[in-house]
């Protein structure tokens, strides 16, 4: 598939593939957005390059995807925006089902803190070197990851506590 890249996106893709070579696995476009799938272990250096050299100073979102495949099941997507070039790019990394781990990019974009906690909460992807990796929405003692495909839609009965139906005073 031929890519239709704007000047600044072309510059981004060229710069990444020249600097990181094989670590940029695939570049593709879908619905008018550009996705760059990169090597999981190099996410820190690639992020630093994107921020410092290519001016992607604004991390607007981080989210997870459960691909439900036997290999490289989980995907973490970083939605980056360059305010100077008015360019949006999505960086993707993939990780295995067993013990999914990705380096946290909070050292580069502090804004990644809460979205990474959300990905951890919903998919169970652990972020190495995250300053405060706790569940963000669900109770601390909740044992499941609700956005994984095998999790039942209505949840697991009794997994979240309901309030007692007798008041404390009685």
């Amino acid at each position: 598939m031929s890519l239709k890249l704007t000047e600044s996106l072309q510059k981004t893709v060229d710069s990444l593939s020249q600097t990181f070579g094989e670590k940029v696995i695939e570049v593709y476009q879908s619905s008018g957005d550009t996705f760059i799938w990169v090597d999981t272990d190099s996410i820190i250096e690639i992020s630093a390059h994107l921020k410092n050299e290519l001016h992607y100073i604004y991390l607007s979102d981080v989210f997870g995807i459960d691909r439900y495949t036997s290999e490289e099941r989980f995907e973490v997507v970083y939605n980056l925006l360059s305010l100077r070039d008015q360019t949006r790019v999505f960086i993707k990394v993939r990780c295995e089902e067993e013990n999914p781990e990705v380096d946290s990019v909070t050292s580069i974009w502090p804004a990644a803190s809460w979205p990474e906690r959300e990905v951890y909460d919903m998919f169970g992807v652990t972020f190495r070197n995250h300053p405060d990796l706790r569940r963000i929405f669900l109770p601390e003692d909740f044992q499941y990851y609700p956005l994984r495909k095998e999790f039942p839609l209505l949840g697991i009965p009794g997994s979240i506590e309901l309030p007692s139906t007798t008041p404390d005073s009685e």
Partner: protein
Amino acid sequence: MGLESALGQGFLTTKMDTLVNWARSNAAWPMPMGLACCAIEMMAFAGPRYDAARFGSEVMRFSPRQADVMIVAGWCTYKMSHAIRRIWDQMPDPKWCIAMGACASTGGMHRCYGVVQGVDNFIPVDAYISGCPPRPDAVIHALMKIQDKIKTEHSVLLDT
């Protein structure tokens, strides 16, 4: 004047229960528990067009200690359920509860792990209102049902 002229110099006998129930049913102050879009319709219910003051329920009390009827308007998460129960426990007896809309009654379209499938899982509900969201008339209907319920209650003295 009204009653005095109609009765002349007479007087009126009634039962204590009836008098108390009449007073209670015409001053059922709501505790608004607005959790989602139903809260907007609940505001319309209290506003001048639908005018809940005709039924004595015009004063929304944001303190549970001054309220009689809790209107749970909107979908309730497990996290929120603890707060609702806490507020419900703070309301003085006797108290009533309206589950307003599909979500508060059954979970509605929020058929998922984070939303309680009906607030009757943790508080006793007296009236359920269907609709998504229900029209203010439906809330008034539920309020009238609650009034009927209050009017037919008998004294706790009879139980002992």
